[in-house]
């Protein structure tokens, strides 16, 4: 891994995700720090990255590296954790049953990834699908259900749906910019993860076991 990637590119990517991931579009735009559960999910995600070799902590923090290089590595690891927590917080619905189910879904998916996946490429694919599914669920499906109706019929249907579910499904309306920002954050995060140093290739000695 080149010094410029470790000292400049990776921190810039992960800090940007940490910034964008906190954006919450309510009545006013605010930056909300990650919830406790998002921190737990982030720990699981980072643990899965370490377990499958996508994140090799010894390449960032090691006694053989210079102090300055170790500080750079520490910044990358810290910003990766912050980005993971903020991204998972951003992709989680804010209230009601959707928040509960998405939290459980992410917990189970990350637990399964942590336990079952040992290959870097498979983990990156699994992560892309997990994050992409959460994105679609929150910013397409739930946002569509919670969007204010444009016609009287749509508003009546929305009111009936809200009454039938005791208001437990509908979320606060999201502006379109929220979905685009979330997409940008997920894509940037995945690029950052893929830029982490790869594990060294196994050395082939050419010996054939008889």
């Amino acid at each position, binding site marked *: 891994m080149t*010094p*410029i990637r*470790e*000292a*400049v590119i990776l*921190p*810039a990517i992960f*800090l940007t995700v*940490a*910034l964008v991931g*906190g954006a919450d579009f309510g009545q*006013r*735009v*605010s*930056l909300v*720090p990650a919830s406790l559960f998002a921190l737990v999910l982030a720990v699981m995600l980072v643990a899965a990255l370490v377990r499958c070799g996508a994140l090799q902590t010894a390449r960032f923090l090691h006694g053989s590296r*210079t102090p*300055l*290089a170790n*500080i*750079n590595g520490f*910044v990358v690891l810290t*910003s990766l954790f912050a980005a993971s927590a903020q991204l998972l917080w951003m992709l989680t619905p804010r209230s009601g049953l959707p928040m509960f189910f998405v939290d459980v879904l992410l917990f189970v998916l990350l637990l399964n990834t942590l336990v079952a996946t040992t290959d870097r490429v498979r983990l990156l694919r699994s992560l892309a699908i997990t994050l992409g599914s959460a994105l679609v669920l929150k910013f397409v499906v739930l946002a569509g259900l919670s969007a204010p109706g444009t016609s009287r019929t749509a508003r009546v249907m929305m009111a009936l749906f809200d009454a039938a579910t005791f208001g437990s499904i509908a979320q606060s309306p999201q502006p379109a910019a929220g979905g685009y920002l979330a997409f940008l954050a997920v894509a940037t995060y995945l690029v950052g993860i893929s830029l982490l140093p790869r594990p060294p290739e196994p050395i082939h000695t050419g010996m054939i076991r008889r």
Partner: protein
Amino acid sequence: MREPIVRSAGLVGALAYAAAIGWLYVTQPQTAAQVTGGFASIVGAYRIDQQAFDDGLRFFRQDQFVEARAAFARADPAERDARTQFYIAYAYYRQGWGRVYNDDALFAKGLATVDRAIAAAPDGRLLVDDTNLLMHSADELRAELQRGLTKDASDLNPMRVFRPRK
């Protein structure tokens, strides 16, 4: 480029970026002016528009409070100047004050604004030397606004119609 230079520059840049993000999370700016004004005030480079401030003061002394707030807002778009925010809060107080009842919405806005003034003042202490005002400190103004928003038995006292506007 030598490796230590790249690493040092990257470290300084990352720490500055992280500090800026932390500042954004703490202060929650809502406009681009608040962001730029906030960063400018950190380095001591923030200045209010003196002409707009003088206009605001003139409107304020003529009891044209809406116009005064507009001019003060133009003078301090980043809401970082304690004195300007004090006058905005005072304008909310004077406009919302009533002999029989106060306008709670204006008083609430005044309270939020005076809190901002106190936060922007060094050590939270703000004194304004203006002979046209009856309250010279942000603490007095804050207490008066809070009293106005509090509902208690003294609201029913008929003698309160004789109380002065400060």
